[in-house]
């Protein structure tokens, strides 16, 4: 059994992680201020924030396999922060699109959401993220009850798939980057399916006997 960090160590780990998660934003802001994001800084910023939303989603989904494979159950205590950072970057990504890219042209935005499959996917993923962020507090977990909370938060699988589709459908021809995200996501989801199947194979007969 791997070592479990003391409450003080855990607080330190969380503080460090919190700061580290702000670094991508700091780099993007630095790029804007120093005008080093290239000829099209608005595009670079929007894309950068989108990239990090997807990365944080995948990091969030990495926690469960990681704690299982490394036998470090305490890692679960970092998951909420990563999930909320995914939401944080999603909000910034959305803001950058609505404000800098479209400049609050709601008609144009509505048209985009309805007519452009990649925006439909991204927008749906964003909407689905909102209830998850809203129910992330301990109080909300208690209010909903563990079982209902867990089934609600399974929406994260759909969100991640929509996020990858959003990227895939945006790309003109070179799908290398979205394909990398798709493969990583497939591995993360595949492990869950594999474990679920294993459990079913071992567990189902017993359950059947009981019921």
């Amino acid at each position, binding site marked *: 059994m791997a070592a479990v960090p003391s409450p003080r160590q855990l607080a330190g780990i969380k503080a460090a992680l919190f700061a580290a998660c702000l670094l991508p934003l700091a780099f993007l802001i630095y790029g804007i201020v120093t005008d080093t994001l290239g*000829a099209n800084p608005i595009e670079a910023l929007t894309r950068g924030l989108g990239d990090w939303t997807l990365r944080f989603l995948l990091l969030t989904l990495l926690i469960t396999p990681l704690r299982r494979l490394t036998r470090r159950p305490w890692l679960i205590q970092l998951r909420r922060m990563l999930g909320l950072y995914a939401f944080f970057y999603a909000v910034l990504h959305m803001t950058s699109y609505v404000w800098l890219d*479209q400049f609050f042209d709601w008609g*144009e935005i509505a048209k985009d959401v309805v*007519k452009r499959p990649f925006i439909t996917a991204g927008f749906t993923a964003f909407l689905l993220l909102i209830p998850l962020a809203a129910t992330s507090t301990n109080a909300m977990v208690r209010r909903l009850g563990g079982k209902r909370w867990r089934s609600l938060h399974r929406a994260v699988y759909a969100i991640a798939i929509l996020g990858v589709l959003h990227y895939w459908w*945006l790309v003109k*021809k070179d799908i290398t980057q979205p394909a990398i995200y798709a493969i990583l996501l497939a591995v993360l989801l595949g492990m869950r399916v594999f474990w679920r199947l294993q459990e079913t194979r071992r567990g189902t007969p017993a359950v059947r006997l009981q019921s």
Partner: protein
Amino acid sequence: MLIKRPADIHPSEITPEAIYRARRQFVGSAMAVAGLAGLGLSPFAVVAEGKLPGLRPGPFGTDEAKTPLKDVTSYNNFYEFGTDKSDPARNAGSLRTRPWTVAVDGLVKKPGTYDIDTLLKLAPLEERVYRLRCVEGWSMVIPWAGYPLNELIKRVEPLGSAKFVEFTTLHDPAQMPGQRSGVLDWPYVEGLRLDEAQHPLALLAFGLYGDVLPNQNGAPVRLVVPWKYGFKSAKSIVRIRFVEKEPVTTWMKAGPREYGFYSNVNPEVDHPRWSQGRERRIGEFFKRKTLMFNGYGDQVAQLYTGMDLRKNF
């Protein structure tokens, strides 16, 4: 007493102007390369052999602000050097633009292979300040240097059967690292209807901002067709062929529902995946409305009279 001294320098020892200018240029570029290398920078920008001589202002200009040279040369779609917009500036140093020839053949009376320096002097060079609209929704204003493509077309005398012109980009993965990936079906092929190619707006360009073309912008010779989306303007051209049938272009092969043969800038006809109604001019904060035929409707609309531009996208 008068002592007659020989002239200090014998006439045969005087270096002709052309030679010493060439030497200075060589030393200059060598020093620039060394200087950049010393600074730890890649000397990709130092492919220019200086100002293009005898450049005269040409017609169809605009008084819109020109896009800064830095942006024109660092934000490029040129998949032969990579698919990221910063890739061409980084990777195009491996392109050798001399020696270079352009084969002009197909249905013409006078086919031939032109050396790039001959082609450059075929007609007087003009500076043409054109808008460039990319199919991705951004735009620039660029001062090109070149002459109407029709100057070349006139000289090769197309046959009556020639209806289209096909342009082929160099295919050499050793010089164009992007061609080592199969992202597009190489070589890059583009095409125009003959009357489009003959239009006075269609430019055979050799330079921008008064200098020879930087490699990442399609050196040593490219097409500029300002009323069509940027990808129609083939770069680093090695062959111009006159044909009877509409050429199948690279982007038509890559996405037949997304990229048509005509690809005229048209705010009414959206790309299946994004709107074409507006564009971001590089360097500007607010998007601007995209103009029909990129603002060249007065010049080119008559080419498409009676044609369904939605169907012929």
